[in-house]
C-alpha cells in the first residue's frame, strides 16, 4: 500500500485546511470553501495511488480475485479518509465553514473519482502503477471543469447561492456513477478481445510489455 503517497497528500490537505486559521480573520465563506475543495483534491490525488501494485503481473495469478484485492485496498483507505476529512473540517473555523453535508459529498466524489479512475486504468490497460496517470487526469478535470462546465450545470457554486442544494444533488449523482464504475472495473475482464485475440492473457506467448 503506498502509504507515503496517501500520507503526503493528507498532510498537504491538512495544511491547506488550516490556512484560514493561519491567515487570521481575513477568511470568508468563499475562501474556506476553496480551501476545503483544494484539500479534498489533494487527498484524492494521493488516493489515486492506492491501487498501485508494482508486482501486479505476479499477483494476477493468485487465487484471490481482483475484486477482493481491490476491495481490501479501498477498505484500508476509506477509514483513513473519513478520519482525515473530519480533522480537515474541524480545522476550518466554524463561522466560515460551508454546509458540512454538501462539502462532504464533494470530497467523497473526488475520492470516488480517483479510485474509479485507478480501477478503470487497471481494468483496461493492466498497468502496474497507473497512479500517476490517474492523478494527472484528476488534475485536468479539476482545472478544466470549473473553466468549461456549462453555467447551468452549476457544480461549483458558493455556499450562500440558492442553487447549492440542486448542485449537490448533481454531485451525489456523480458520486454514484463513480462508485458504479469502480465496482464494475474491480472485476477481471471475462474475455480479452482486441489485438490479443485468443492468446493467453498471461503474456507468455506474446511480446513482453513493460
Amino acid at each position: 500500500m503506498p502509504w507515503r503517497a496517501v500520507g503526503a497528500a493528507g498532510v498537504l490537505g491538512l495544511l491547506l485546511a488550516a490556512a484560514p486559521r493561519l491567515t487570521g480573520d481575513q477568511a470568508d465563506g468563499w475562501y474556506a470553501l476553496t480551501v476545503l475543495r483544494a484539500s479534498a483534491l489533494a487527498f484524492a490525488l494521493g488516493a489515486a495511488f492506492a491501487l498501485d501494485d508494482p508486482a501486479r503481473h505476479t499477483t494476477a495469478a493468485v487465487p484471490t480475485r481482483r475484486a477482493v484485492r481491490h476491495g481490501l485496498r479501498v477498505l484500508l483507505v476509506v477509514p483513513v479518509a473519513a478520519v482525515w476529512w473530519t480533522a480537515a473540517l474541524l480545522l476550518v473555523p466554524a463561522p466560515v465553514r460551508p454546509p458540512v453535508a454538501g462539502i462532504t459529498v464533494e470530497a467523497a466524489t473526488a475520492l470516488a473519482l480517483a479510485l474509479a479512475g485507478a480501477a478503470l486504468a487497471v481494468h483496461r490497460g493492466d498497468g502496474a502503477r497507473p497512479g500517476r496517470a490517474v492523478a494527472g487526469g484528476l488534475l485536468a478535470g479539476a482545472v478544466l471543469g470549473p473553466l468549461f462546465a456549462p453555467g447551468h450545470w452549476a457544480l461549483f457554486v458558493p455556499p450562500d447561492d440558492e442553487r447549492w442544494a440542486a448542485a449537490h444533488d448533481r454531485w451525489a449523482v456523480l458520486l454514484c456513477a463513480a462508485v458504479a464504475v469502480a465496482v464494475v472495473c474491480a472485476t477481471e475482464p471475462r474475455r480479452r478481445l482486441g489485438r490479443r485475440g485468443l492468446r493467453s492473457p498471461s503474456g507468455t506467448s506474446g511480446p513482453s510489455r513493460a
Partner: protein
Amino acid sequence: MTAATETPAAVTAVPRASGAAVIALARFETRRLLLRAPVLAAFAVYIGWTVWRTRTSWDGFPALQDADRATQGGPLLVGLAVLFCANHAVLRSRRHDTDRHLDVLVVQPWRRTVAHLLSVAAAALLTGVCVAGQFTWEALKPGAVGHGSPGELLAGPLSVLVLGTIGVLLARLLTSPFAAPLLIVLLFFLHTVATAPDNGHTVRWLVLTVGENTATTLPSDLLGRPAAWHALYLTGLALTAALLAVLVSGGARLRTVRAGVVGAVALTLVGAVAQGQGVSRETTEARVRASAAPEKEQKCAERDGTTYCVFPEWTVRTDDWAEAVAGVRSLAGGAARDRPLLVRQRIEARYGLDGDAAIAPATRPGQVTVGTAWGGNRVPEFTAAVAGVLVAGTEAKAGAMCDGRMVTVMWMALAGRPDPVADLRRVRLDDSDRGSAIVLSQTEPLRMTAAQTELVRELLRRPEREVAAKVKAEWAGLTAPKVTSDQVAALLGLDEPEEKDECL
C-alpha cells in the same frame, strides 16, 4: 603473409563531443515532451480557446495595451502540463530502473538534466510563438489602437519556462511520482492566497501572472504596471530553478553553476523588489493630469464642422467617430445641423485600472464626451450622447432632460444605425424595448419613459426618409423645452401614446 597493421593512434575524448550529446538528447526529449498527451491536450485547449475568444474580442476594436495582458492566461495551462510531463520525463529512468545503467555513461547526470531543461525551453518557445500569433492577430484588426508592452507579452512564455524548470527541479529533489500533482495543488493555493485583494503590491506581483479585473482601457503610459520588472523576475526564477536542478544532479563541482545560482537568485530578488514598488509618482501625476485637464495632452483634428480632441494613441479612430457623428447630424434640423461640436475624449485614471468611477457630464455648450472603447454597445451610446447635445445644448442638460425631446434624441441616435431596434435594446440598461428605462452613456445616463419608448419604436417602424422630413420640418416644436410626449406625437403624425409618461 602478415599484413602490416598500424596501431591506431590513441584517441582522447574530445570535450566538445559532450555538447553534441546534450543537444542530441535535448532533441529527443523535446520530441517526447511535445507529443505527450497532457501537453498536446493543453496546447489544443489553449489554442482553441484563444482562437474562439480572439474572433470577437472587444467587438473588433481592441486596445493593444489590453490585448497584451489577455495573452497571459492561456499559457498557464500549458505550463502546468509541461511541469507534469517534464517531471515524468526526468523520473523515467528511475521508473524503469535504468539509473544504474545510465550513470556509467560518459554523459553525466547533470548534462542529462540540461537536456531536459532545453526541452522545457523548447515548449516555452512554442508558447511564445502562439502568444505572438494571438497578439499579431489583434494588432492587425482594423480597429486596433494603442501600444502593446513587450514585458506583458513575455510573461506567458516565461511562466511556462518557470513551471517546467520547477518540474525538473522537483524530480531531481524528490523522486516520488506523487510529488508533482501535490505541488500543482500547492501552487494553485499559493496563487489564490497571493492574489487576495488586501495584499500589498509586493506579494501580489510574486505570482506568475497578475491580471486586472477590469474592462476599462487607459492610455498605455498611465497603466502603472511593472511589466518589464516582472519579466526580469520570472527570468530570474526560471534560471534559479534550472541551475539548482543542475546543481542537485551533480553539477555542484562546477564553479560556473555555483556562480550562476548566486547570480540568478540575485536577479530574482532585484526583480521582486523592483516590481513591488507600486505606482510611481510620475505615473500618478500623469493620471491626475489626464483625468482633470486632458486638453493639455490631447491632439485636436477637425472633420466636417466637428473638432475631435483625443489622446495621441486614439487619433486613428477619428474616422469611426466622424462617421457616427455625421450620421446623427444628417438627421437634425434647424440650427442644430450646423452647430459646431467638440468631441473630447475623457477618462478617469486616478484610481488606476481597478477604478470604475463615473465621468461628470460636460457643461460647455456643444461638447460631447467619448471614451476609450468603441464597437458593440459603445456606438449607440455615443450617438445618443451626440443627439442629446444637438437637442439640449450641453451634456449636463441632456442628462436632466425628461420630456418629449427624448423621442427626437433617441430617434436621431438610432435611425442611422444598421439595426435600430436591436441597438435600442443594447443602449438601455435592462436590455428591453418596452417600458421606461435608463439609457447608458459615457457620462450621465439619459432617461426614457414608457410613452417615449413606444413613440420611438413606432418611429423606427416607419421609413426613415418620411420621418426625417417630418423631424426637420417640425424641429423647433420638437425641441422646445418641456414639450410633452402627446404634443410630440401630434407633431409627428402619430397616435397618442397609451403608456405612462412619468419620469423616473
